[in-house]
């Protein structure tokens, strides 16, 4: 807290290097946000460039690599399909909305996600809750 004999006014500003702080501070924040603004405005171009480059190098391994194996695990038996789906969807927690399920199936490139979900529902593996969410039947 300022004491009684505190220096005040312009003198105080000068003594505490106030002018330099104010000017430098203002300059820095404006420069910083200007640069960020500039980068943002170019970001979509950088991304487009990266995507093109990446597409050439990784397109094939990407499709080969991870998800199709998961599609394979879908069998004709809805019981098995249910259990497979359940492990795919541990990230959803105990109860979830059908649309989340759908988007996971979609992400995994599963064939006919809508039909799969409908089958799971009609077979009783997807149990509707009162709040519109669903949970898996305990297997």
């Amino acid at each position, binding site marked *: *807290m*300022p004491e009684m004999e505190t220096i005040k006014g312009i003198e*105080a500003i000068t003594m505490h290097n*106030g002018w330099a702080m104010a000017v430098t*501070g203002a300059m820095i*924040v404006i420069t910083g946000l*200007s640069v960020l603004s500039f980068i943002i405005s170019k970001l*979509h171009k950088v991304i487009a460039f990266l995507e093109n480059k990446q597409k050439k190098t990784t397109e094939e391994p990407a499709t080969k690599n991870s998800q199709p194996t998961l599609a394979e695990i879908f069998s004709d038996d809805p019981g098995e399909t249910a259990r497979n789906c359940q492990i795919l969807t541990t990230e959803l927690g105990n109860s979830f909305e059908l649309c989340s399920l759908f988007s996971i199936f979609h992400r995994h490139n599963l064939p006919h996600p809508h039909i799969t979900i409908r089958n799971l529902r009609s077979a009783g593996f997807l149990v509707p809750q009162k709040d519109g969410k669903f949970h898996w039947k305990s297997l």
Partner: protein
Amino acid sequence: MELFSEFIKNTGYYLVAADLRYLIMITVGILFCYLSIAKRYEPLLLLPIGFGVIIGNIPFFKGFGLGIYEDNSVLHYLYFGVTTGLYPSIVFLGLGAMTDFTSMLSRPKLMLLGAAAQMGIYFTLLSALALGFTPREAGSIAIIGGADGPTSIFLTAKLAPHLIGSVAIAAYSYMALIPIIQPPIMRLLTTEKERCIHMPEDDRVVSRKELLFFPIVGTLLCCFLAPASIPLLGPFFFGNLMKVSGVVDRLAKTASSSIIDTATIFLGFTVGASTQADYFLKPESLKIFFLGAVAFSIATASGVTFAKIMNLFLEKKINPLLGAAGVSAVPGSAREVHLVGQKADPSNYLLMHAMACNASGVIGSAICAGILWSFMM
């Protein structure tokens, strides 16, 4: 009988008679509660603070472990999150998980207004020094001009902890009073014609990848520039990345609900309680309130003026009202800009652009907090 009279001497009724300042503060607390409930002025902030002010100003016998400034009291432990800066950091984590940068990313030019509106901070810095505050105190007071509660509390906790109560109350009071402070300044500095400028509606579709890159680019740029803003911007961009990534929805949801709510409740409540009359009611607090009003006004004015200067160089003019949204005060100032714009021309739709300035203003004032902090090393 002795015990009884002893007890009576320790009741609030007896103690308050000896020091009526507590009653003043309790009235202020009730006023805050009233404004938040009846007028709906920023209730998420004002209600906890208001009730905290009441609780913090119930007179009690000192040295007993009850007051917020006494070791070992419950309030003291809860206040720990304020003095260490934990609550503001956690609030920023949740804010990040709630903020949608789409609008800002499609209109990068508007970010500059978020920078310009920080001029209020530096002007207030000079004013506070001139009024005799020490540099560390002046820095804490100046940040009120950033119009961002958690940022103000964070910087003050680091620079001048004894001012936390005053700075926080000033910052939140003026944020609640945005509808009263900003419109006259906006109208004063702009012509009717300027206020009618329409902004192009759909600048550009923002891709998911841009949204994903932004928090990382933003972190690297802003935190490299002012490392002292890490405790605010780090969690902020982290929360945002959790949100836009789409792979950790449960974490993002918890961050934007339970976590931020909990931090908000305890932040507001303890900041309110820290206004214990014998610590708070001092001439300095009045000066801080005065400087806070100056800070908000200058911030608004500099945002608007900067937009007008930009217009000198831009072909496609910007509506200068948007400058006023750069002070952040999310989302109050964006709403005011929009309403003033609509008054001038009911077909004018400035809200999304104002939100872009808002978002950039939050980043701007966090950077300024980092800058000020590092100046005071």
